[in-house]
């Protein structure tokens, strides 16, 4: 793909595509600064969902009538869009899941249970969302493998110097790493960890939930073995996600869930599995949601992932600059150049819940809590933070409203 010269996006124009931002009765205009938890949907995606249900809906991989064929074609076309989106080698390497969590659990159980045992090490990091932490901890417990974590610095960056020591005394079998931290926005140098994993004869699993919606992801360039992301964080519907898996690994793995749609032949004595990727899609998949995710991919590509990343970078720079001036405000996370569109912070003496509630009264939505990141929160020495996150429809005016709301919170609690 040629590099776009004019990458600046027009957030105001983009916003017109999102019905949620239309003025609602009496309320303050919505300043939605919580896209890291889930993004809103443009009309194009909603229309694709409705159009599919109205004109092409059917189950997949089953019917022989024309309608079912149409549904099947739309579903497989969405898979090809996802394949191109992450630059996988073939559609067989793309499995539709419910979300990132399910994709990571699929690998943890379908790969982990057959490949891990005593003496083996599973390595994650302190930055991980619980969804890329707990499945590994759990599968390690079940198999007798050891679960270890790469520590983070106080700025939320991985300490990569001591990796050799970290895996001493065992066989490293799997590295699970996030591409972008959901709490702090840290852009993780995943290539280094993937390279380290492969040097040690281990496989590398990437959690791209916070990366795929915001920046170009290329599984071949990364050379990762598995990569998971969710549709709902990238303007797609909830209930659908994507798991990329390297073909050789997918082929050797047992299924995760079994049942309809994933078999080749079933008899009382033995069952054999369908070809990839269907082996990993037991039961009726989220057909319409996958089709609408395809529309979301088209939408994001139409705007350009580079333009989206640049826009968020600008807003993050603006937010960090203004927020650094607020007395009693602590910012968490790495410097701007290694940070995605996420700003985590605390106001001295005010609990994040209270900050979020005061901001809500001003129409500003932020996340308050531990962000499914309790080990990281403990490392930072807090129980929770407030978090503002940006997306393609975010505006500098919303940052201004956030800052004004924070000033108000300080007054209320003064």
């Amino acid at each position: 793909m040629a590099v776009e010269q004019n990458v600046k996006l027009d957030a105001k124009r983009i916003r017109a595509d999102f019905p949620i931002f239309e003025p609602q009765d009496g309320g303050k205009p919505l300043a939605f600064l919580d896209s890291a938890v889930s993004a809103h949907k443009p009309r194009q995606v909603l229309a694709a969902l409705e159009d599919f249900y109205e004109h092409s809906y059917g189950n997949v991989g089953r019917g022989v009538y024309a309608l079912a064929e149409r549904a099947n074609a739309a579903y497989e076309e969405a898979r090809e869009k996802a394949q191109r989106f992450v630059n996988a080698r073939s559609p067989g390497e793309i499995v539709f899941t419910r979300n990132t969590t399910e994709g990571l659990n699929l690998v943890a159980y379908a790969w982990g249970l057959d490949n891990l045992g005593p003496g083996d090490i599973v390595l994650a990091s302190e930055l991980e969302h619980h969804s890329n932490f707990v499945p590994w901890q759990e599968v390690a417990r079940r198999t007798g493998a050891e679960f270890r974590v790469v520590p983070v610095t106080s700025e939320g960056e991985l300490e990569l110097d001591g990796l050799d020591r970290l895996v001493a005394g065992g066989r490293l079998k799997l590295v699970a790493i996030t591409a972008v931290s959901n709490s702090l926005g840290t852009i993780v140098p995943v290539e280094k960890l993937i390279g380290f994993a492969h040097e040690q004869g281990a496989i590398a699993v990437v959690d791209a939930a916070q990366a795929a919606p915001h920046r170009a992801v290329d599984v071949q360039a990364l050379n990762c073995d598995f990569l998971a992301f969710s549709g709902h964080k990238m303007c797609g519907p909830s209930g659908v996600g994507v798991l990329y898996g390297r073909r050789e690994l997918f082929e050797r793995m047992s299924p995760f869930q079994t049942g309809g749609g994933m078999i080749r032949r079933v008899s009382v004595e033995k069952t054999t599995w369908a070809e990839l990727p269907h082996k990993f899609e037991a039961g009726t998949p989220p057909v319409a949601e996958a089709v609408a995710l395809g529309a979301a991919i088209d939408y994001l590509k139409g705007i350009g992932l580079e333009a989206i990343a640049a826009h968020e970078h600008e807003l993050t720079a603006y937010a960090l600059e203004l927020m650094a001036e607020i007395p009693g405000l602590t910012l968490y996370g790495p410097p701007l150049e290694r940070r995605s569109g996420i700003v985590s912070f605390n106001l001295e003496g005010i609990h994040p819940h209270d900050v979020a509630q005061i901001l809500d009264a001003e129409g500003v939505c932020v996340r308050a809590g531990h962000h499914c990141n309790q080990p990281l929160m403990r490392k930072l020495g807090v129980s929770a933070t407030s978090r503002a996150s940006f997306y393609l429809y975010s505006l500098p005016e919303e940052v201004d409203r956030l800052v004004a709301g924070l000033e108000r919170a300080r007054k209320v609690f003064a």
Partner: protein
Amino acid sequence: MNDIDNLYRELILDHYKSPRHHGRLEPADAEAEGQNPLCGDELTVTLRFGADGETIEEVAFDGHGCAISQAAASMLSEEIVGRKAAEVAEIGKDDTPLVAMMVESGTPLTPVRLKCALLGLGVLKVALHKSAGTPLPEEWAGVEDVDFE
């Protein structure tokens, strides 16, 4: 605090900034620890009973959290000293001072904030049922201490 200009805001903030019955009693006749898994708030309650073994003579809450959870515990502590343990263990969700006050004010807490407000009552119930040897009602099971380490 749905409407942050609410008259009751001042009272909540006052309890948050200067919590009553704050700290830990040592030794204590009953104690419990609880968390709100949503936000990581933690609260510990310690209690001492009078000579009759059933009147709450002293109570102390300790922990950290949002204004709602801390103020609710503080306001609750003022209400229960001198009362019988068995009777306090029966206090309903709507009868805690902060929750009742917000309902009366016409701006009841949202379901999420209600969880914050009920953390204090929850740990208190755990402590009282534990010391009495009575089973904790199922609806309160979620607040009981979960050991992380």
